[in-house]
């Protein structure tokens, strides 16, 4: 108890109304260095103490705005640049989805940073020593009482005068507060170079580990297999083949599906002998035959195969399909004519597939029977 110095005179009050009027009286009496302590903020106190408007709001604004901008950049960078995923068919940068994140980060950074700023400015962090700390006075005013302290270094401070004055303002208790100078001058350990070095090393280590874990150990390439498949697109080069061409010429003798080469070129008689109509006579086959006949054959041969073309003499009329010659031809012989052409009739092999040709032949047989029916047909 040697180095005790007088810090100031404290007064304790029981109600917020008393402390409000007391603060006004203290201010009016000309004291400059005094402070009021209460368990919760009392509205009207800044006015009673004649304090200028608090500038803490600006700190909140700045931190809130920087939190908002940080959150916007963070969400933008994550979901539009670094790891773009298509979510719900939305564009990579879809602002409405970011609003909740931005809101939360804004509120968080504004409130936390405001409290920290307040601690730094008003309590002079990192130095947390204060003469009032760990006193009976502080215990009271942080639970259910209200207190005023007039500091001893005020210009017009006089201990006995102040104590009398505070008593008059309606204080329930008035007492002086002493403090130990040495205790206050202890430098905070937080600023020692050793600690700062340790802090820096820890920060670098932790962020290094985090970076390594997230970017190397746990990294997964974004899913874009729909876009990048291991197949070769047309007209693209290939590294597999020596000549660098992606497209290859087929092996000799390769035949495209449904395009077998015609075996009886210029051999109409052989075609008539060896080719057999593979299609059964059925309704669907005949309907196909009729359809194709009406499209490709009827313009010259006529709808009924009588050679009555609709070409009005612009093209020589073909002979009738009802002639005895054609009637006695085998299916293969007619197939040969359709495939190769005959006289001025061109080949129809590019317009009609093989099956369609066979179907047309069935339909021609039907036409022929309609004019030259067998006796059995009439029974």
């Amino acid at each position: 108890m040697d180095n005790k110095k007088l810090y100031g005179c404290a007064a304790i009050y029981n109600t917020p109304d008393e402390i409000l009027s007391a603060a006004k009286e203290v201010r009016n009496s000309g004291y400059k260095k005094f402070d009021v302590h209460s368990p919760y903020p009392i509205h009207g106190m800044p006015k009673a103490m004649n304090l200028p408007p608090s500038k803490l709001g600006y700190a909140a604004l700045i931190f809130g705005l920087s939190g908002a901008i940080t959150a916007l950049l963070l969400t933008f960078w994550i979901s539009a640049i670094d790891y773009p995923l298509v979510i719900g068919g939305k564009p990579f940068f879809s602002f409405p989805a970011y609003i909740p994140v931005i809101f939360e980060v804004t509120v968080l950074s504004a409130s936390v940073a405001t409290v920290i700023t307040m601690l730094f400015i008003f309590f002079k962090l990192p130095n947390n020593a204060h003469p009032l700390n760990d006193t009976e006075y502080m215990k009271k005013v942080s639970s259910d009482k209200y207190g005023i302290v007039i500091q001893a270094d005020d210009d017009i401070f006089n201990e006995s005068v102040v104590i009398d004055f505070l008593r008059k303002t309606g204080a329930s208790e008035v007492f002086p507060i002493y403090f130990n100078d040495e205790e206050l001058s202890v430098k905070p350990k937080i600023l020692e170079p050793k600690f700062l070095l340790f802090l820096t090393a820890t920060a670098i280590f932790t962020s290094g580990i985090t970076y390594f874990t997230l970017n190397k150990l746990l990294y997964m390439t974004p899913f874009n297999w729909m876009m990048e498949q291991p197949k070769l697109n047309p007209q693209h080069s290939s590294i597999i083949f020596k000549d660098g061409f992606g497209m290859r010429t087929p092996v000799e003798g390769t035949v495209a599906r449904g395009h077998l080469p015609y075996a009886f070129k210029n051999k109409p008689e052989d075609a008539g002998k060896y080719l057999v109509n593979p299609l059964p006579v059925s309704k669907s086959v005949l309907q196909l035959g009729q359809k194709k006949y009406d499209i490709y054959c009827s313009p010259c041969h006529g709808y009924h195969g009588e050679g009555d073309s609709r070409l009005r003499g612009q093209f020589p009329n073909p002979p009738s399909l009802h002639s005895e010659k054609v009637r006695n031809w085998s299916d293969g012989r007619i197939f040969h004519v359709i495939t190769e052409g005959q006289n001025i009739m061109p080949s129809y092999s590019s317009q009609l597939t093989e099956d369609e040709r066979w179907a047309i032949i069935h339909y021609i047989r039907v036409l022929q029977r309609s004019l030259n029916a067998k006796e059995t047909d009439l029974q």
Partner: protein
Amino acid sequence: MNHNAEISYIKKNIPSKVKSLGISLLIIGMLGIILSYYFDTARSAYNNIIIFLFLISIGVGSLFLISIEYLSGAVWSVPFRRIPEFLAGIILTLPIIVLPLIFNMSNVFEWLHPEILKIDELLKSKAPYLNQNFFIVRIFVFISIWLIFFYFLLRNSIKQDENKDQALTKKNIKFSAAFMPFFAITITFTAIDWLMSLEPHWFSTIFGVYYFSGSVLAALASSTIAIVLLNEKGYLLKGLSNDHYYSLGALLFAFVNFWAYIAFSQYLLIWYANLPEETIWFLNRWQGSWIYFSIGLIIIHFVVPYFGLLSQPSKMNPKRLLLMSIWILFAHYYDLFWLAIPNYSKNQVIFSWNEISFLVFAIGLLIIIFYAFANKFNLVPIGDPKLKRGIDFRL
């Protein structure tokens, strides 16, 4: 025993100027409404829905404010509790305002038409709820529930002026507690019936809360207008200070934010899920000139009141508070307009004498009702045991 011994209240009547203003607005609006119904029934029916819900917002929202005060044991709002009590009197007129709607329902509601019901499976499955008889029964049951609670809450409060009986406050607390679940259910289903069923295929589970947030704002704003006007002219008790104004402003500010929160929640979920049957509702409000109206809703209903009420001095300044309250009341009308009219006029915002006459009528009606109650009863609940504490209230 008597806490209010030192309070002396001398009742001052509101000048009859106000009454003639109200009556002239009412008559002008009435003429406009009759002409409007004569020329364009469907459009008038939509406007009728808007002012019907606008008045429900103020009336039932005021009942909510009274009940909240009783339930939370708030003292700061006691000196001007009469104002929401009088404003809740608008509930008395609701059965009359809903009548033209009952006769013109088929102009507005798609689900009423049997030929649509025949081909529409979805509406057919909703028919047990959305059918004319049940619908009409529902709204009258709701109105009678509100009337019952309005009658008892006001009667006890008035009775207390004379006999200063504290037991009446306790009774009203019980009524308020009973009112809360009824309020939640009725306000939700009112919103669903009259606004959501305008587009019967569309649905949103948050819609009731959306309307609730707007309705409390409207009740609070209209009460604040009356409180500031009356207090600045000295009709209320002396001693109401910045702290009371600040509390009103803070509550307004809180509900402005609450509305924005709910509105954005509704938008975000629908935008995210991107289901055609849900997004169509917003797309209808994003077509033609409605897009500007929709963007205007964000600015009028959130941005302007937010910055207007943000700072502490602005909540304590009576002029600013009055301005913002009028603005918020208008914003609620704007909100209801945005909810209802796109179903009538697709692609194009319409606003003409039809809309104005309905709005003028609603304002006139509010003034008349308030005037009638204010001249009949005390403007301050002088018998309330919390009155003295309410006047001495400091933050």
